[in-house]
């Protein structure tokens, strides 16, 4: 029987029962780790030892740690290399698959395959393709260009990893652009065509302005992802980051420093704090640029 008391209890308790599993998981495995990362960054905690408060010592040590600067440099270079390509190429790809011509669904799905495949699979495929004796090199040799050590040179390796990141991301951002292109009014193109604008002109003065906010979104998403790059470089350069560790990225350094039985949790947390700060700054920067342009 539904007494008033029972109704009231149900109203006040059941929302919390609904939200409880989500809140519990999020609290325990996202928010608590986030707070403890901040706290740990001020301690000398290790995996098996509780830490003591050491103030800013970890951050001071960062400033004198060559590996940190290498990681920061590579992660920053990654943004510069990857983001322009991921803002432009998927847009061109989206224009290519936008028209509903026969078989286009097949092409769209096929272009999405690299997104679906695990980054480990993708990494290993490209390690094999770019190997000293791999497919790319035998094609280059057949073409008379000669073999190149894509994975043995510090800079070529970083460039190759960037190319793989772009290759894997193309399909993902292509779909985002497709959704945006669907909202571009056809009349704009027609009006421009009547005015005598060619395809390139129409692309620059109709399509680009119409999908501008999507380009900003893609820039934000891809720059944050690029800064946090781990798997591609880890797989192609190896756990220690290529020749003399010169290809280590910031997240690789976090993983290497903070895990294992002797992991320096405190120091790795300070590195993580740098990752947070830069990530948030990037988001704000890109979104702010967007707002300024609109006003």
């Amino acid at each position: 029987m539904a007494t008033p008391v029972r109704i009231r209890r149900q109203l006040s308790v059941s929302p919390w029962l609904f939200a409880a599993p989500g809140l519990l998981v999020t609290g325990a495995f996202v928010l608590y780790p986030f707070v403890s990362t901040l706290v740990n960054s001020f301690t000398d905690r290790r995996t098996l030892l509780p830490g003591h408060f050491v103030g800013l010592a970890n951050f001071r040590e960062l400033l004198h740690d060559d590996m940190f600067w290498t990681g920061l440099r590579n992660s920053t270079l990654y943004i510069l290399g990857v983001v322009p390509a991921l803002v432009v190429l998927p847009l061109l790809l989206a224009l290519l698959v936008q028209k509903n011509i026969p078989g286009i669904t097949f092409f769209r799905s096929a272009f999405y395959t690299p997104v679906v495949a695990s980054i480990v699979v993708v990494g290993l495929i490209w390690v094999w393709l770019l190997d000293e004796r791999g497919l790319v090199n035998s094609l280059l040799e057949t073409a008379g260009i000669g073999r190149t050590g894509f994975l043995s040179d510090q800079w070529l390796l970083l460039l190759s990893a960037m190319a793989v990141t772009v290759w894997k991301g193309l399909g993902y951002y292509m779909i985002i652009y497709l959704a945006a292109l669907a909202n571009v009014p056809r009349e704009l193109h027609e009006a421009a065509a009547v005015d005598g604008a060619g395809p390139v002109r129409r692309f620059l003065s109709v399509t680009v302005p119409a999908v501008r906010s999507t380009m900003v979104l893609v820039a934000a998403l891809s720059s944050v992802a690029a800064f946090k790059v781990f798997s591609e470089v880890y797989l192609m350069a190896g756990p220690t980051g290529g020749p003399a560790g010169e290809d280590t990225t910031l997240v690789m350094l976090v993983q290497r420093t903070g895990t294992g039985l002797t992991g320096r949790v405190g120091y790795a947390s300070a590195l993580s704090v740098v990752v947070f700060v830069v990530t948030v700054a990037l988001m704000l920067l890109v979104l702010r640029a967007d707002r300024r342009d609109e006003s």
Partner: protein
Amino acid sequence: MRREPHVTDEHGRRIRVGELVWRYLLLLAVLALTVGPFLWQLSTSLKGPTEDIYSSPPSFLPAHPTLHNYTRVADTIPVWDYALNSLKVATANVVTNCVGSALAGYALARLRFRGRRGTTLVFVLAMLVPVEGIVIAQFTTMRELGLNNTLIGVVLPGAIGAMNVLLMRNAFRNLPYEIEEAAYVDGADVWQRFLRIALPSVKGTVAVVAIFAFMGAWDDFLWPLIVLSDPSKFTLTIGLNYLHGTFANDERLVAAGTVIAVAPLIALFACLQRYFFRGIGEGAVKG
């Protein structure tokens, strides 16, 4: 090149044959770039031990195709156990994400309670926290719970994704209130309204959450790499990395391993691609 005299675009306009030709040429070129590497990997995995896999010019078809490398992978690493581990993790992730985010999403969208705004904010904030920045703390949290080096430890951090909660919330919010009101008047309690009326109306979004949860778990690398140390507990991605590190000199073996890891996913994707694209489109539009 197919000769279609009346190929039209989505607005019913005819596309000229010349334009069609270069469109298909470009499409085929991109196809070669995106799918070619997977086919090359497949081809390598089918080449026998006597065949030169380093030849120049490269030979794209195996001279004598063999499945020998696949049995060799299984002899080298327990690849089927790893696949089973990955399947367990991915399935668990699908169940927890669908159930957990549907429940929480429903509460946020449809139930009135003190602290609802605060709860929403928790999920929004959680979505903004980069996983890469908290993996070390997640690792120590798991250690405190005694769950390191277990598959449960692999599942838990991503068990109910904040993003999925917000996706479900948006889906529930878009339902008209009238249908639930009728049930309310008929005396249905909140669980009945959730299970019988609201949930069946958002099946599409549940499917999207399920697909993303499965692929995310199946493909994940950094977190299992950190939390798992015992080779018998490895998931497929970690096992592959191990195979590559230990037997890097035999490309046929590594190739066969990657094909085992990627084939089920491509099959799944091919079956569900319609939901998939809709989901990404929706997610992108809604931010």
